[in-house]
């Protein structure tokens, strides 16, 4: 069994485009440190470390997606946004990608800005926008939280995948011409299926944390996206 690389490898996107996205990613991460810092207290800091470690672990577990010969794996943006908020969450995913590129040869070092842009920035941002909207309209019950997690995770995976399609159009190694639409269609289709897996894992994980320690779920906290409402009684939470 050869464990395959799961992020953009060297040679797939040309150097200048990769460099532009490296600058974008670096600027966004600096902003995330600045904005995330106000949420990072003695409780959130170790929790964010755990979220990063958990995402690294679950990303290793590729699951079949009912399409012959293709697997999927967690990206983690929605999970991170739900548990530690968008700024710190994006940093968690970025740390995972950096470790994978520097230590595990997964994703070219020159491609790191592209991978961070797709998974850490687009994935987390898309998820967070949906989380805020869904938590406002859905009932504040475990089912409401589960639906929020599932939908935001699914959409975030497709959004992150479309980030790659955009990058490929700007600087793909092989000029696909009109076939870029074909690539977009293929990637959208597989990532819709991967998104179902991402949604299930995200919902299961967030519900588990919400049942044992609702105060450690950023999306349920008073400082979170839906301020002024008390923490909902999820399951047997005290």
């Amino acid at each position, binding site marked *: *069994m*050869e*464990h*395959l*690389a*799961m*992020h953009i*490898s060297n040679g*797939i996107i040309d150097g200048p485009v990769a460099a532009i996205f490296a600058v974008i990613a670096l600027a966004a*991460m*600096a902003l995330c*440190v*600045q*904005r995330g*810092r*106000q*949420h*990072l*207290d*003695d409780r959130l800091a*170790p929790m*964010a*470390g*755990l979220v990063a*470690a*958990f995402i*690294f*672990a679950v990303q*290793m*577990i*590729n699951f*079949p*997606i009912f399409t012959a*010969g*293709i*697997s*999927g*794996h967690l990206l983690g943006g929605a999970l991170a946004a739900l548990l530690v908020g968008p700024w710190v969450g994006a*940093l968690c995913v970025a*740390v*995972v990608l950096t*470790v*994978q590129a*520097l230590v*595990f*040869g*997964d994703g*070219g*070092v020159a491609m790191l800005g592209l991978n961070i842009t797709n998974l850490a920035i687009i994935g987390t941002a898309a998820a967070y926008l949906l989380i805020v909207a869904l938590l406002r309209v859905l009932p504040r019950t475990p089912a409401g939280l589960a639906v929020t997690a599932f939908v935001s995770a699914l959409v975030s995976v497709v959004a992150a995948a479309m980030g*790659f399609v955009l990058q*490929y159009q700007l600087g793909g190694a*092989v000029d*696909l011409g009109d076939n870029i639409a074909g*690539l977009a269609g*293929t*990637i959208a289709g*597989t990532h819709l299926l*991967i998104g179902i897996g991402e949604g299930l894992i995200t919902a299961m994980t967030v519900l588990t944390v919400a049942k*044992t*320690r609702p105060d450690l779920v950023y999306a349920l906290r008073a400082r979170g996206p839906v301020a002024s409402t008390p923490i909902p009684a999820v399951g047997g939470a005290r």
Partner: protein
Amino acid sequence: MRKRTWGFIASGLLVSLLLAGVVSGFASADPDGLESALREGCTVDAEGAVTGGDCPAQREQEHEIGGPLADYGVTGIADDALATGLSGVVGVLLTFALAGGGFWLVRRRAGQQTTGDGDGAAQPTSAAGVG
């Protein structure tokens, strides 16, 4: 309170270590959604290597670093599940140390004043940004 939080962190870390160290051995070996899309147009042999045709995946180049844990294996360990599990355990501990340590260093200390949007007090170190 603090003790309970650290207990939760320890349990979560244990779950992560089991997932990366043991469950990872049962993961699908098929290429993921990105890789498979980049192989469209190419033929692939049983080992997963591109053998012919025309597709973006053929342009893939060597990784800059590689290293002893490249591709989630361990140089010198032939048993795939064991190598994957060991590299997974190292990865979980390394990620936790870097992310947790970095976040701990830039955290808001008790009693520290932050302005409304936190901008005034933020002095991020460059090392903390991307771990």
